[in-house]
């Protein structure tokens, strides 16, 4: 993956210096985790992790396998409950939260192993993402008429916009179980986008993809970030991608925070090189 293909369309003010890692200014904090520790019995998954995610940035979480990256996402969207530490989201501190409450406050995510609803069509999968916004109760839905139909159509229009955006019009009515892997990942992104999230958590969105699919996915991520202003936190193993598209990077290793900074800082950090990046022998 070359830097040129992924070049960030820099904000107008900085357009005279369109370097791949052109830093943008983010000041407002969207989410802050402080001193998070999570253990399963005797296994310590996370130890004293603190970092923040600022509004509108692309934040990468990297680290070797088993470093606790996915656990970190699970903590953020309420799936795991850390024993110690606080999470401040949009200025509100919380320690315990159920996943559906996190969904209500605008946190969406995708999964490392695709977690689509296999028996449903692409359209239905993405429509499911709109569920929290649908207000009519099941008695109206039983009639499928009047306000219920109107609501269904309003959301259909939103979903169609997402389908257009992700360029998956042709597979609208196909059951997702039959789709190839790369498209399934795209549908899953669509389902997360349908929630109109403020914070989008992506767990290895490019795992197992070929170069073209990765380029497409990067383009979608950057566009989501630019056009919808969505804050993105992603876990990714492809260092080329991470260094190109992310604004700041957190490095975890054995459940500990190893480094936190811009891609350039992280790339130069000796501890990170030792633990994860390694050195090239050329």
């Amino acid at each position, binding site marked *: 993956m070359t830097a040129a293909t992924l070049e960030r369309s820099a904000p107008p003010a900085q357009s005279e210096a369109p370097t791949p890692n052109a830093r943008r200014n983010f000041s407002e904090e969207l989410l802050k985790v402080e001193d998070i520790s999570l253990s399963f019995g005797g296994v310590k998954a996370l130890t004293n992790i603190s970092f923040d995610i600022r509004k509108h940035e692309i934040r990468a979480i990297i680290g070797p396998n088993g470093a606790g990256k996915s656990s970190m996402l699970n903590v953020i969207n309420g799936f795991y409950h850390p024993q110690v530490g606080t999470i401040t989201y949009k200025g509100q501190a919380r320690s315990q939260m*159920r996943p559906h409450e996190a969904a209500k406050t605008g946190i*969406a995510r995708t999964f490392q192993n695709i977690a689509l*609803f296999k*028996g449903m069509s692409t359209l239905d999968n993405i429509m499911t993402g709109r569920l929290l916004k*649908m207000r009519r109760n099941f008695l109206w*839905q*039983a009639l*499928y008429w009047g306000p219920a139909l109107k609501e269904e*159509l309003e959301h259909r229009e939103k979903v169609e916009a997402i389908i257009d955006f992700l360029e998956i019009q042709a597979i609208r009515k196909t059951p997702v179980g039959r789709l190839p892997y790369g498209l399934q990942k795209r549908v899953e992104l669509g389902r997360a986008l349908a929630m109109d999230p403020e914070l989008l958590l992506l767990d290895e969105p490019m795992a197992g993809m070929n170069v073209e699919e990765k380029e497409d996915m990067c383009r979608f991520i950057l566009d989501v970030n630019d056009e919808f202003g969505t804050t993105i936190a992603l876990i990714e193993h492809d260092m080329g991608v991470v260094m190109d598209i992310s604004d700041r990077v957190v490095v975890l290793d054995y459940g500990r925070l190893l480094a936190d900074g811009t891609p350039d800082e992280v790339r130069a950090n000796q501890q990170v090189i030792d633990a994860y990046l390694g050195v090239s022998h050329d």
Partner: protein
Amino acid sequence: MLYREAGQFKTNYVADQAIFPIRQDRIGMAIVLLFAWVIIPAFGTDYFLEIIMINFLFFSLAAIGLNILTGYTGLISLGTGGFMAVGAVASYKLAVIFPDLNIILVFLLSGLIAAAVGIVFGLPSLRIKGFYLAVATLAAQFFLDWLFLRFDWFTNSSTAIEGVPKTLFGFLVTGPDASPFAKYYVALGFVTVFALIAKNLVRSAIGRAWMAIRDMDIAAEIIGIRPLPTKLLAFAISAFYSGVAGSLMLFLFYDSAEPDLFDINLSFKVLFMVIIGGLGSILGSFMGAAFIVMIPILLTLAPDLLGLPISSDLAKHLEFMIFGALIIFFLIVEPNGLARLWQITKEKLRLWPFPY
């Protein structure tokens, strides 16, 4: 050439979201409704209307109910017979205690009572899944069986519950003296309306929530679906359908029944209908019910029709063997049920007479 959707363009989402978006399906449905509402009652004999059609109709309703729970929400239930018993007993009690209550209200209220019972027995579904949930719902079946046999308040101190004679629009529609014709129309009316409601539910937001829970409950939760209310609603609606089916079964078919009619065998029968017809398909519920209700009747009639002189014992045993073999055959050919078989046929028809 017959089943081709080429040239049928949708220009708005209303048309695309319609219940039958393809013209041929609409025509097919209209023909089915015409048969059900006009031709069958006009030409069917009493035997055909009563033993085959009414039997088929209330089983279809029960199968739709179970399909909502097992096929769409992925919760296996063996309590259908129990919920049907609740519906039957409730309608009997309501009809006796409130003699002036409209028969349609009696059926609907019995369904609501069954729904309440369904919610109670659905509570374990938050914690347990799969076969373990099947065992938990088995508890519902045995408990309800026992309850109605043990306390004779439910049967008004007699051994049987009865279909109380009731009139609707001046016609006698229930009880032993009602004509099969009138009973058939009541059953058909209920099945038509509730099949439509079920179809609407499964294609709107609540249906998507059910299927999301079925396919990937963790992802469903992260989208914001709350598992407990969603599952309980599925239990309630499923039990409502079973309850109404139980009332229809008592009032329109058996006229008089002992509570142990609604035993575990009935639960299995409905579950087989759903599995053979196709999990997660309203059409499949009808196909499964038709298969399980009609094949044994046809097999019983077959020796006579073919003029084969075989003893009734042998005929009965042959019926069991052929019926069992047919079930196995269909499950091997298409594990996803008759509805899937029908879908494959339609896909083939779209291309016919070309190979691809």
